[in-house]
């Protein structure tokens, strides 16, 4: 069970992705330029298989809802393991 989040960090976002989205790989970046309120996150998870882009994004929004509400801005890119592999090959 994850503890309630009071402040958002790359670690807290990664943890939520792991536990709630079955993520196999997470890359989080703080692009806030200091104020710690703007994150960019790449998530790889088999749970994204067969989902449309919108569905994947909604899943992530739902899983990270509490944390997204605390930050100023949030960007996400979601991949299935196969998509991620293909990307690495390029």
């Amino acid at each position: 069970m994850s503890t309630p989040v009071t402040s958002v960090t790359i670690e807290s976002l990664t943890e939520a992705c792991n536990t709630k989205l079955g993520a196999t790989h997470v890359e989080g970046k703080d692009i806030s330029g200091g104020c710690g309120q703007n994150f960019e996150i790449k998530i790889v998870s088999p749970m994204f298989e067969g989902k449309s882009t919108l569905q994947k994004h909604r899943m992530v929004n739902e899983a990270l809802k509490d944390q997204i509400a605390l930050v100023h801005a949030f960007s996400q890119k979601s991949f299935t393991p196969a998509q991620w592999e293909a990307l690495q090959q390029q």
Partner: protein
Amino acid sequence: MAAISNYTVIGTDDDFSAVYQPTTSTVYALNFWAAWAPPCVQMNDVFEELASKNSNIKFIKIEAEKFPDISEEYEIAAVPSFVFVKEGKVVDRVEGANPPELSKTVAKYSKSPASSATNGTTAASTPSVAAAPTMSAEEMNARLKELTSSSSVMVFIKGTPTAPRCQFSRQLLEILTAQNIRFSSFNILADDEVRQAMKTFSDWPTFPQVYVKGEFVGGLDVVKELVATGEFQALVPAEKDLKTRMDELIHKAPVMIFIKGSPETPRCGFSK
């Protein structure tokens, strides 16, 4: 951007005493900000936007640390802080970067219509959405349904196409323009009721939001992905150039009449 007469940026202490007249019944909205606090940047834009829409209130922007005396007088402990003053007394305060709260407070003292929507469009003309008083959930739902389908591509953004107020809205507009897609837009900074209601309506917490043919497509990230895979272009064919459109239209039927309005609702005596 054209200078707004009810909006002042303080350069010296004298500027403040020149603008601020406690003896009149004018309401003053003071924005205490600092360049080192990123939330202030967004709020400054919101503040300016509100100034352009509420001409009976005088908006004054004060860089807090440059004017310690004024800041102390209004007991500014943190930025951004917004203080509303009337007849020499502080009547309201909004602390922190809270656009809806600020809009609401401004609306309290404003004599202009509670909310107004402006639509910016690249080419097509869409009737502008009329200002609406507070309405029931049902009415709001009906209004949003109408709004989201009012154009083939309808985007809900912060600001307008010519003056976007957020990097994400700006990026979305750039993508649409690059893809040569005709769209209409709604400025959610100008109407807080719609802004809040849209989050529930779309079940999406942020803006910008994109609707195609009345269906929610997603936010900026989703649109970026859809554009990369070509899905977006399939959803929304790009605008044909004017000559092609004219050719197609002229040849559409054996007899084509170009009128003002529609056969059911002609908009001019001659067309009728």
